[in-house]
């Protein structure tokens, strides 16, 4: 029932789709774990013979039975190691499928980026971590339920063949346990949801606080942050405790059922045993099989609990997709590279429609549901032109660039590239057509070269570094372009961060360079030199936000945005 792309596909269908991504791995795990679960069956039979030999004083029979027990035990545990190692690999595979789908959608899917993350990046990480885990738990649950059920069926059959009453008496408590877990289900789900949300608040707060550690330190706000952290920790503890108790109830249901059922079987077979129709070995076999059979509700309850959790988790990961209603999208087939790692990245930089003219007409943006934004903006950038956007704070300069690039949704307006309308600029206005330098660029904690190239070959690196005057800074860095720049480029100066981001855009050799306020972080001289070098390299077509005189003077065209406040049409 896993119609691909169908909104509202069931949890089972989605989990199954993930399993099918690497069917051999899943079937191998299924076979190995079923084998492991089945081991108590032959061991129980051998035990029956062993106990009967003890009663009969038959030394030879005992020797055979004990040898069989020993053999099966060694085989069982050896099998476990193989199964566990294989399972750990398969497990990572199950986690990887929704992760890759979510990240692919976030980082390369169409449509605007704005609002793509429902919360902070730290909160989103909890979706990649905990929610992916929950879904994988369902796949894992199936392995155990399958193995345990097959084992239970065989066990019940053997018990029934010895004494029908014994076989039947097992089923009643097991059914009751399933009923109880069914009652628990909806509650468990609600508790789990609350616990997850509280966890996400905590991880979000940690990520956020350390992301802004400099502001916290500068203000001496450590204690205030501590107090706040304490408060959200306390809230989380309340809901998480309840959630854990729910999990324990399910576990107890399974284990308790086993022991109680042993008692019930004893009760019901007492007269047959007393009459000598059952041997001591039979009682021993019953006791050992009942424990295994009564384990089934535990596995089923565990699976159904995870299945309910996974239901929430699937929605949470699906919220990261382009089409947030397409639950099945998280399980789309993925080529994983777990065993050998991915092959080196090859970026396609071919371009067939070189920029002649980019035209924007009637562009309107309303963002954040607020009553301000951009109205009816129109401008043109032709090959070789420098177009500057300027205007007061909050007039929507950055918004204009981001709407053009499809990073925020536009309400209306057309964008054409050489006269061809562009529906989804987010996937079209990217390198090699357009490269972008945001006002507050985000660099990644890796080597300088890597954060500039982001997967491109390094043949253009030196040129880009020269253009942005970073060549002069390199000498002062310990490992040159291999220097680690720290999280978000924390080890670079503000201007270096900006110029690194400029290099990142230039190294992509875009037809059009879109720059949001390079001047703010650069001194006059450096900026002047940067522009001189860029001009010298023959590179010219650019759309730039700036209010620096020097830049405005060189512009071929200036787009002036008005003040937005006070322009609030309808309430």
């Amino acid at each position, binding site marked *: 029932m896993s119609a691909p792309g169908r909104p509202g596909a069931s949890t089972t269908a989605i989990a199954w789709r993930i399993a099918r991504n690497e069917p051999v791995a899943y079937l191998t795990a299924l076979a190995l774990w079923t084998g492991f679960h089945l081991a108590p069956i032959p061991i129980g039979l051998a035990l029956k013979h062993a106990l009967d030999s003890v009663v009969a004083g038959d030394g030879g029979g005992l020797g055979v039975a004990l040898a069989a027990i020993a053999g099966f035990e060694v085989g069982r545990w050896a099998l476990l190691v193989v199964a*566990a190692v294989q399972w*750990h690999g398969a497990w990572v595979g199950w986690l990887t499928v929704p992760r890759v789908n979510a990240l692919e959608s976030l*980082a390369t899917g169409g449509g605007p980026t704005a609002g793509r993350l429902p919360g902070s990046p730290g909160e989103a990480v909890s979706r990649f971590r905990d929610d992916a885990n929950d879904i994988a738990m369902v796949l894992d649950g199936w392995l155990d339920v399958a193995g345990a059920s097959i084992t239970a069926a065989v066990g019940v059959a053997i018990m029934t063949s010895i004494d029908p009453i014994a076989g039947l008496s097992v089923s009643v408590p097991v059914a009751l346990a399933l009923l109880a877990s069914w009652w628990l289900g909806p509650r468990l789900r609600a508790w789990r949801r609350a616990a997850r949300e509280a966890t996400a608040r905590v991880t979000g707060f940690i990520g956020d606080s350390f992301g802004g550690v400099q502001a916290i330190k500068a203000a001496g706000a450590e204690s205030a942050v501590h107090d706040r952290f304490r408060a959200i920790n306390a809230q989380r503890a309340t809901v998480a405790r309840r959630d854990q108790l729910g999990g324990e109830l399910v576990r107890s249901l399974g284990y308790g059922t086993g022991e109680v059922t042993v008692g*019930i079987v004893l009760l019901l077979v007492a007269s047959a045993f007393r009459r000598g129709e059952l041997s001591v070995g039979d009682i021993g076999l019953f*006791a050992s099989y009942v424990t295994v059979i009564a384990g089934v509700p535990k596995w089923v309850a565990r699976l159904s609990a995870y299945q309910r959790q996974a239901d929430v988790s699937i929605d949470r990961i699906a919220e990261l997709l382009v089409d947030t209603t397409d639950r099945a999208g998280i399980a789309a087939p993925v080529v994983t590279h777990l065993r050998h790692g991915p092959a080196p990245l090859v970026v396609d930089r071919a371009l067939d429609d070189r920029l002649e003219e980019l035209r924007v007409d009637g562009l309107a943006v309303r963002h954040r549901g607020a009553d301000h934004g951009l109205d009816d903006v129109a401008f043109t950038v032709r090959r070789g032109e420098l177009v500057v956007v300027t205007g007061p704070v909050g007039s929507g300069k950055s918004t204009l660039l981001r709407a053009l690039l499809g990073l925020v949704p536009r309400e209306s307006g057309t964008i054409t590239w050489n006269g061809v309308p562009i529906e989804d600029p987010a996937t079209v206005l990217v390198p*090699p057509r357009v490269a*972008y330098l945001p006002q507050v660029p*985000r660099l990644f904690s890796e080597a300088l070269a890597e954060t500039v190239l982001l997967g491109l070959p390094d043949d253009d690196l030196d040129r880009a570094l020269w253009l942005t005057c970073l060549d*002069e800074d390199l000498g002062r860095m310990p490992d040159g372009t291999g220097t680690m720049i720290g999280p978000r480029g924390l080890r670079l100066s503000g201007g270096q961060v900006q110029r690194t981001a400029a290099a990142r855009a230039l190294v992509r050799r875009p037809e059009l360079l879109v720059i949001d306020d390079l001047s703010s972080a650069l001194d006059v001289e450096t900026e002047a030199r940067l522009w001189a070098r860029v001009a010298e390299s023959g590179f010219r077509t650019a759309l730039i936000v700036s209010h620096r*005189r020097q830049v405005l003077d060189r512009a071929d065209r200036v787009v002036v945005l008005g003040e937005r406040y006070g322009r609030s049409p309808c309430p």
Partner: protein
Amino acid sequence: MPRTPAPAARLLAATLRPERRSVTRILAVLVAAMALRLSMPVLLGVFVDDAVNGRSLDRLTQVAGLYIGAALAAEGLQLAVVWSSVKLSWRAGNRLREQLADHALRLDLGWHGRHSPGQLIERIDGDVEALCVFFANVVLEVLGNAILVVGMLAVAFAIDVRAGLVLLAVVVLGTTLLVRQRAAAVPAREAEREANAQLYGDLEERLGGLEDLRANGAGTYAVHRLHGHSARAWRTARYASLRGDGAYAISAIAFAAGSVSILALGFVLHRSDVVTVGAVVSLFRFSEMMRHPLERIAEQMKEFQKAFAGARRAATMLATESSIPDGAGVALPSGPLTVELDAVTFSYRPGTPVLRGIDLVLEPGRHVGVIGRTGSGKTTLGRLLLRFWDVDDGVVRVGGVDVREVPVQALRRRIAVVTQDVELFDASLRDNLTLFGTHVAADERLVAVLGDVGLAPWLATLPDGLDTHLAGSGSLSAGEGQLLAFARAFLADPDVVVLDEASSRLDPVTEARIGAATHALLAGRSALIIAHRLATLDEVDEIVVIDDGEIVERGPRAVLAADPSTRYSRLLRISTGGLLADEVVV
């Protein structure tokens, strides 16, 4: 490589110490639950003997009924124990989380430069989570099963000394194997967690920079990295499993050998009429039950290994000392402060000084403008003043006191820095302004300050006013963010102000509009103003030009501006368009 468990163990002990009383209470209930569990195999043996000896059906029914009753009661008590230990684990775990977060917050920025927020989420929450699971389960699974094992041994010895000895041998062997293998599995487990920490750390960063990635066509590269990290997780997880589960299997086999030995021994003892068949059944159940606690303990081993690895990292983090030791407690004089840099040399990395022999005096209430190329070390001045870093050589004095002698927080409360990077939090506007209540101010004051910096119209558009939730840095324009930073500085009411490119993201109109507010902020305060836009420096008393970490020019602003040969006047001319870029002499 030899690894000492001492710091991790000490940390665990310290975290649990305040919980001694609850632990005692939990233990009492646990002992009762385990006694009930212990009674069940004995009852099974009695049942078998009674049947073999032809006792009445009523008697057999009674024994079976007792068995059921014991099973139910044991389950109830166990739930009670779980509830208490879960509560305990959250108390202790959250205490540790808070301790770690607090400690990490107080570590120096150099340390933070090496640890991404994503990694810290894993350290402060992920690792402690493993510890929490451990706290919640250790009592029940490890301690409870230990009690059970001791009880079973006692009963076995009571039945027959030889049987007791066999079981004891099994326990000793199993435990020895466990302990040996556990130590060997920790590094593998640690490598697995490290691989995961990297995976999540990288994800957190990429998710925080989605716009940059997408608009530069690097989304595929982010996915490529995820594949790389996943492959590493795959390798480390399988290896850790081989070590961990291998250990588990070996001890499980040891226990199976115990069951076989018990049956063989039971055969001999029964044939010589030393024990009944029921006793053999009880002993066999015990030997099987031995394996069950072992399985539980082994399952916990995984948690234990995780917890132990986590505790070790936590202990390491707590043992990390800030490279900025807190000052001894010399108080700063009240009122406007003198700032003095005396032959200051500083480098972020040894051998590449950012500042060299800087001498700079900022008299109380005076304003000094600092200009220089990017990377020339201007921003570092502010960082040294705030003691984000300590000088390599020379002294930084504030109010005549070496900053290293002043308590760090006291120092920072007196100095406000407005930088080009405004860090906003996923919290209410109020919390963003007061930094979670650090600056104590009534709402009226907050609104007034927002008005002063020109954010009143913006405030009016917010649905919930000061309670409006700002979803991190994405919810304001960069200019609005910077105005917010000005508002923060006002609320801090500092004696020294450092404006580091503070108005760089403001357009000239807005800048002029908050000019009055800036004026008010700077009035009567000492100020260091770092700027690219020279217009920002029109009102400073003195100008300092820094190049490549050294002061290359300094003097009263008016004097430098009037002299056409100075760098300052040349820069003035570039910025007003009087010079073309290619004429700039560097």
